[in-house]
């Protein structure tokens, strides 16, 4: 056989992602089944008007309909939604990455601590009511109705950018992503809004629950990179009397 002039053809290279690998394997398996069923021994047997026997439009539709479920079973999770509308329109297929953030074993924390994060700057501790900002519509509502006093915003993916204009209206912020060098941290420092970045939690925080965050902890070093803490992280606890 003549060697491909570009070396290894693309379809022999490993796939970058699980879903791509899974889809390719499913298509290849289906083609093989169809070849076996057609009793074809070589590609030439199926060229011409029989090519649809290899992979029909129906085969494609069937695989597309099942690949999401197979991915969920094998990966133990849904696809990550790249935009809000994906999750809203097909909740059986998509999830927000933030909803799947692995919780930390409570044993990793001191008793009573439900989470921690990198402190953007040292301030006073804050006790307040959690408001989870996850969707654009929630930010719109906060912008038009105003932010209730004593709100600690818990910000995940969508919030990072969107919440910047209302950042000074929060008493404090817990951000589940980023680092102390993120845009959000830079703006929080300027507005003097106590903020934790890259928070880890033993369980998801719920809108309405009251927490106390130890913003009086030393600021995380700005030299710290992801996953590397040069300064002890600031702790999050249920508010006293609310535990």
């Amino acid at each position: 056989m003549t060697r491909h002039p570009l070396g290894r053809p693309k379809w022999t290279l490993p796939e970058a992602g699980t879903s791509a690998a899974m889809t390719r394997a499913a298509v290849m398996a289906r083609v093989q089944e169809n070849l076996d069923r057609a009793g074809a021994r070589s590609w030439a047997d199926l060229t011409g008007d029989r090519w649809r026997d290899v992979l029909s439009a129906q085969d494609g539709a069937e695989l597309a309909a099942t690949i999401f479920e197979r991915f969920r079973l094998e990966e133990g999770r849904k696809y990550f939604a790249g935009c809000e509308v994906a999750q809203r329109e097909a909740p059986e297929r998509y999830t927000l990455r933030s909803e799947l953030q692995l919780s930390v074993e409570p044993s990793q924390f001191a008793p009573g601590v439900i989470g921690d994060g990198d402190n953007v700057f040292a301030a006073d501790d804050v006790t307040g009511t959690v408001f989870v900002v996850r969707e654009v519509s929630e930010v719109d509502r906060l912008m038009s109705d105003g932010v209730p006093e004593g709100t600690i915003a818990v910000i995940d993916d969508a919030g990072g950018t969107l919440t910047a204009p209302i950042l000074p209206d929060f008493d404090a912020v817990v951000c589940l992503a980023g680092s102390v060098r993120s845009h959000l941290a830079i703006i929080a420092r300027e507005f003097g809004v106590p903020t934790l970045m890259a928070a880890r939690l033993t369980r998801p925080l719920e809108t309405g629950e009251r927490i106390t965050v130890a913003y009086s902890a030393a600021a995380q070093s700005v030299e710290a990179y992801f996953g590397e803490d040069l300064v002890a992280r600031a702790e999050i606890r249920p508010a006293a009397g609310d535990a």
Partner: protein
Amino acid sequence: MDELLHALRIKGRATTDELAAALDTAPQEVEAGLRALEADGLAIERATGRRPGWMISPAGRDAHAEQASTHVTAEVRAEILQHYKRFLKVNDPVKEVCTIWQTTSDEERRLDLLAELRALHDQASPVVASTGEAIPRFARYGDRLTAALERAAGDPRYVVSPLVDSYHTVWFECHEDFLVTLGRNRHDEGSW
């Protein structure tokens, strides 16, 4: 695409003067434009609160998303993506300089940081300029970044303060505009 609606979407909340500066237009013209958007239910004025100003309404956000998805061709978007990848290479160092600036008050250190920011600006300028050739509004980010850097030498607020057209303010908006133009979000790429 409605440039005023777009500027409001990028800034989130802004005063007439801030929008006029961003669009390089007379404030009276911006004010008239905002009233027209308000009449169409696309913008809302908040006269009270800690930061009075204008914001985009949910209907305005939808209208903007529709305009944003159709106003650039796939070819232009592919070209912008290449510029954006170069922008991202400078993004982390810029945020790092801004962060260290905020956490030091040492004058000499700050002079060094300004020099670093100038060097990073020299890397970013051609990227923003090339993007501006494909989508003209990006050229204004280039002008505003240059202006912020010039003012920063005499007024330290122009490095990071969100209350003025600081280098970080404009950089953040430019980054946001890239994301909106490319239909991406920060979470997809781990860039907060």
